[in-house]
């Protein structure tokens, strides 16, 4: 027994150190002053700005932060040896968290405030609210369609302004001018400033539009001229082969060959040519040549290639057709003088025109650039204000009360854990938030299924790499869904890895190999066998009863000798199965305990007496007792008397059947009978008490109201009393509901306990899979000797490491993650958690701007 105490002390010490370090670390990282919850700290600030404010607060009761200790048992045993139990104190102590974004056990109390504002004061008030970003607004006219609300005129005005600003912003962005972005929380302009901004923005827009229009028309002119130049340049190459083949078109034959010159988009040439050929029945020639320049199409603003073409044809009618076809294909027909000298004259003319336009264009563009820089410097601030419009409508309030939203404060560490809970359901207002407990229990349950400290180290390394990578902006704000998801859960990964190292050390497995940190406490030599026997005997039985063979428990975790044992699996299975039960039942019990706290917080005394109390008694008398006898058997039954040890399974069945004849300990029969009786009594208690109590109180209420009716005939008083208290009560309904709850709970206790056995199954599967990987792959490679050994080892090692990552870390990790998730969502949370609240979403310009940026990014 002394050794037990010693071990427990050591373990506790270690664990406290670890946890304390963890919390200390968190605390250090947190900003802000000491504890203390301040709701709506900035309230008076914005109240000042509006005239005639009537303030009505319905301030919620402040919850005191309770310190809760969660006990998780974790026992292990050497075959039938004195055990050693350690207690881990997982203290999610709220005051150790940084106070500003600290996670609390309940959502932060909120106040429902009714503001009565004159319409003139509504705007500045809403501005202040939006800047502070601390208040969630209620839409009190949800049925009214958006354009029938009070401030429609203003909204439309801001709509226009938004349109103007968006135009400016896009132009600025297109030009690549940097916009001055404010990181600090944006300020909304006052209504007078808003008008000012509007007029300035509009004049800027007009100016910009004009300049842009000029720019585009100049560019179009320039393109046209360049095309013309290209045509004239290309013409010489068209005409020379023609003149060579037929030196002079002979007018005497009566056939006059005419030509049309023009420009057309290169992409349309093939069908153009085909159509020409079809329509003109071959009486036309098409020459074309692509221009080297790339032009910008006027409508789509995409780059296009254009070609110069020359069509030669005979006959008037065909000429008409050719003209029409050119028109149809958006070809531009240009006049072209036939003689070389005229052409050259024209070319030089064009040259000068081009240079003129170019200078004008550069000047215009410079001006435009300046305008845009000017716009860029102010546009960001203006963008803020467009968001006012949406919310201005909410400012006329009526009184109405709905379920308040839950404000759950998180920081970057607790964020991911809170998300795990929120994925199931957001805590109702002031309901106990399971997230703080999840921070410890989730990685722990994961690690029980993923116990291998080699794998844990890899996971920790990965999480640390993520933390390090988080320094760069691109990773933090990545739009890649998978990356951002993994990055969001980086602290979960870190804790999962750390806990896996811990459980891996207890299972004594590192890539399925045990590690000899201390020497084994089993001794073969004490068996007093001959050396020959030991060497040639394939089955050696080490009997712990034999003095000197077993020297007390291994200092920490499982003795490495078990890895060589033939009955390793038998031993581990029994150990892990009991461990699962020892973890699961307290976990569920803790859930019930939280439900008790919940009801106490809301002062639901009837529920505590009629529901929670019988539930707690049922669970602890039948299932808690199971935990106790498991531990008792570990402690009490030593190797010497282990042959006579009773079977726990049979004992437990006898407990339910009220049968006797057991010998685990002396007063077992009486104890068990009374416990079973207590458990059985709990069922009718749970089933009947609540409906009956409800029925009685309902009857009493009815009688009271009847008496008051008889006593005084004032219809005014009784009328208002009755309305609030007349609640429809149907005994049969209540009874059915309670019956369903009872059946669910009682069966749930059994099935949930069985469900916790997944801890055993998954850790077994993980251990076996890594064992297989080691023995089938890497040990083959390690077997090689000599010079060639490295070359043989290399491919084996590659395969081993790849498979380790893919199967053991990713696949097994995901499956353990899912099962841990399920254990939390179903087995733990269904004991106390409703999760039908909604998140607090404050009206804040900053959030609105962020969400806007995200939508524009994607």
């Amino acid at each position: 027994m002394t050794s037990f105490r010693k071990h427990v002390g050591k373990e506790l010490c270690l664990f406290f150190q670890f946890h304390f370090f963890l919390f200390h670390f968190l605390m250090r990282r947190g900003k802000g002053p000491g504890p203390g919850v301040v709701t709506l700290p900035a309230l008076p600030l914005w109240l000042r700005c509006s005239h005639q404010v009537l303030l009505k607060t319905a301030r919620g009761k402040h919850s005191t932060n309770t310190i809760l200790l969660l006990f998780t048992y974790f026992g292990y045993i050497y075959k039938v040896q004195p055990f050693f139990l350690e207690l881990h104190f997982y203290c999610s102590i709220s005051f150790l968290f940084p106070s500003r974004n600290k996670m609390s056990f309940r959502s932060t109390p909120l106040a429902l405030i009714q503001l009565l504002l004159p319409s003139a004061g509504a705007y500045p008030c809403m501005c202040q609210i939006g800047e502070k970003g601390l208040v969630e607004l209620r839409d009190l006219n949800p049925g009214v369609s958006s354009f029938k609300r009070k401030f429609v005129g203003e909204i439309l005005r801001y709509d226009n302004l938004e349109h103007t600003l968006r135009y400016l912003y896009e132009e600025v962005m297109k030009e690549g001018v940097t916009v001055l972005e404010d990181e600090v929380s944006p300020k909304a302009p006052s209504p007078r400033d808003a008008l000012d901004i509007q007029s300035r923005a509009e004049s800027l827009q007009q100016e910009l539009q004009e300049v842009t229009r000029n720019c585009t028309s100049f560019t179009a002119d320039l393109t046209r001229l360049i095309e013309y130049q290209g045509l004239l340049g290309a013409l010489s190459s068209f005409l020379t082969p023609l003149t060579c083949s037929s030196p002079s078109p002979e007018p005497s034959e009566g056939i006059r060959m005419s030509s049309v010159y023009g420009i057309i988009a290169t992409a349309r040439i093939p069908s153009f040519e085909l159509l020409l050929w079809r329509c003109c029945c071959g009486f036309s020639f098409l020459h074309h040549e692509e221009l080297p320049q790339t032009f910008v199409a006027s409508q789509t603003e995409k780059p296009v290639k254009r070609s110069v073409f020359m069509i030669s044809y005979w006959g008037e009618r065909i000429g008409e057709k050719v003209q029409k076809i050119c028109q149809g294909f958006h070809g531009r027909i240009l006049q072209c003088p036939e003689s070389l000298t005229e052409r050259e004259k024209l070319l030089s003319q064009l040259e000068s025109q081009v240079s003129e336009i170019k200078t004008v264009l550069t000047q215009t563009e410079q001006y435009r650039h300046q305008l845009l820089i000017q716009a860029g410097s102010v546009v960001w601030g203006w963008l803020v204000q467009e968001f006012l419009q949406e919310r201005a409508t909410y400012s006329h309030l009526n009184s109405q009360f709905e379920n308040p939203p839950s404000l759950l404060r998180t920081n970057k560490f607790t964020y991911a854990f809170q998300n795990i809970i929120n994925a199931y359901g957001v805590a109702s207002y002031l309901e106990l938030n399971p997230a703080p407990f999840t921070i410890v229990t989730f990685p722990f349950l994961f690690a029980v299924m993923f116990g291998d400290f080699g794998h844990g180290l890899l996971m920790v390394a990965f999480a640390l790499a993520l933390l390090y990578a988080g320094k760069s902006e691109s990773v933090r704000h990545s739009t890649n869904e998978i990356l951002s998801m993994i990055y969001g859960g980086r602290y979960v990964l870190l804790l999962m890895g750390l806990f896996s190292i811990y459980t891996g050390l207890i299972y004594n497995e590192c890539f399925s190999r045990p590690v000899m940190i201390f020497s084994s406490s089993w001794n073969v030599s004490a068996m007093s066998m001959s050396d020959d026997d030991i060497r040639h005997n394939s089955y050696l039985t080490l009997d712990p009863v034999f003095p000197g063979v077993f020297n007390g428990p291994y200092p920490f975790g499982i003795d490495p000798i078990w890895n060589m044992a033939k009955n390793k699996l038998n031993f581990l299975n029994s150990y892990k199965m009991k461990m699962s039960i020892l973890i699961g039942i307290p976990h569920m019990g803790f859930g019930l305990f939280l439900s008790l706290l919940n009801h106490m917080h809301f002062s639901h005394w009837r529920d505590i007496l009629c529901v929670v109390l019988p539930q707690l008694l049922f669970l602890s008398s039948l299932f808690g007792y199971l935990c106790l006898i498991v531990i008792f058997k570990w402690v009490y039954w030593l190797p010497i008397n282990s042959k006579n040890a009773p079977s726990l399974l049979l004992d437990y069945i006898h407990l339910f059947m009220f049968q006797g004849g057991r010998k685990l300990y002396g007063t077992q029969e009486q104890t068990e009978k009374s416990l079973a009786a207590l458990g059985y009594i709990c069922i009718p208690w749970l089933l009947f008490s609540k409906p009956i109590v409800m029925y009685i109180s309902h009857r009493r209420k009815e009688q009271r109201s009847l008496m008051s009716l008889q006593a005084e005939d004032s219809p005014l008083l009784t009328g208002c009393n009755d309305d609030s208290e007349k609640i429809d009560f149907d005994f049969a309904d209540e009874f059915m509901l309670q019956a369903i709850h009872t059946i669910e709970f009682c069966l749930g206790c059994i099935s949930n306990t069985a469900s916790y056995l997944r801890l055993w199954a998954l850790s077994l599967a993980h251990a076996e899979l890594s064992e297989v990987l080691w023995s089938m792959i890497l040990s083959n490679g390690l077997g090689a000797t000599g010079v060639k050994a490295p070359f043989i080892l290399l491919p084996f090692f590659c395969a081993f490491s790849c498979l380790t990552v893919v199967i053991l870390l990713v696949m097994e990790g995901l499956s353990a993650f899912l099962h841990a998730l399920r254990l939390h969502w179903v087995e733990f949370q269904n004991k106390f958690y409703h999760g039908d609240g909604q998140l607090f979403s404050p009206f804040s310009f900053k959030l609105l701007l962020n969400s806007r940026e995200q939508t524009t990014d994607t």
Partner: protein
Amino acid sequence: MPFSEFTFNVDSGYLEGLVRGFKGGILKRTDYVNLVQCDTLEDLKLHLQSTDYGSFLANEASPLTVSVIDDKLKEKMVVEFSHMRNHAYEPLAGFLDFITYSYMIDNVILLITGTLHQRAISELVPKCHPLGSFEQMEAVNIAQTPAELYNAILVDTPLAPFFQDCISEQDLDEMNIEIIRNTLYKAYLESFFNICNQLGGTTAEMMCPILEFEADRRAIIITINSFGTELSKEDRAKLFPRCGKLHPEGLAQLARADDYEQVKNVADYYPDYKQLFEGVGSNPGEKTLEDRFFEHEVKLNILAFLNQFHFGVFYSYVKLKEQECRNIVWIAECIAQRHRAKIDNYIPIF
């Protein structure tokens, strides 16, 4: 191909998912109720913003007109359609192309009629449906006769096979254009019907009723519209698409019909169509025959979404979207012209 549903998702699963997503964005009855309440086109814009259309009108300058709305509605539909077309494999790609052919026919006819009335081609092109535009479209006006139209222009387009029945040396006058349109449509519908039958499976099962109805509707409308024109009964009979339920007895009777009552009598033999003719009239509370046909078409198209692994959903989506455009434009017109009496005459889809 038998059991094609097993392999359908390999090539077309993504697009079917997409089109079903798009279908979710089609305006519901409640949306229409809200739209009808609008007082100005700006209100309409505000309302459409809260639907799947989002901010599709956000960058339009302030005095909004119905034609701008119409263009933007069409543009959105064309963007969606061309996205699907660009990601489609055969045979879906061919099927989607076939959907556009009907718009191509409309465009060709529009352009020819326009040129006949001495309109400039640049004025006509914006009126064409963007889904049916093709490269040679704008050169259509050079043709003087149907033969020329075919030989020079349409021979390179997918419309060529439909055109073979109407090659003649006659001039293009209004009557002939109408005949060409209906002949083209007839050939188009019949070959679309055949293609759907060749595709077989659920596609045929879903598409055939829609196309049958389309064919019968055309036959009935052609008959009704031909009363009082110089179109002879023999010519009229040639224009009836022969893939509907009316074929062959109903069509033969339609060919003999002289007035509206006789058409109605023909429809009485077919329970589906008999229903449509009931309650038709121009009095308040009654609907026009055209609207009744549209309603029936919408009903058939909605049915296509009840089955999976077939191409009918794409056709139905395009048709429903077209109907939605018509509805919104109708409501917008009523609002713009302050003519609220008939604003409820749109055809709700879901």
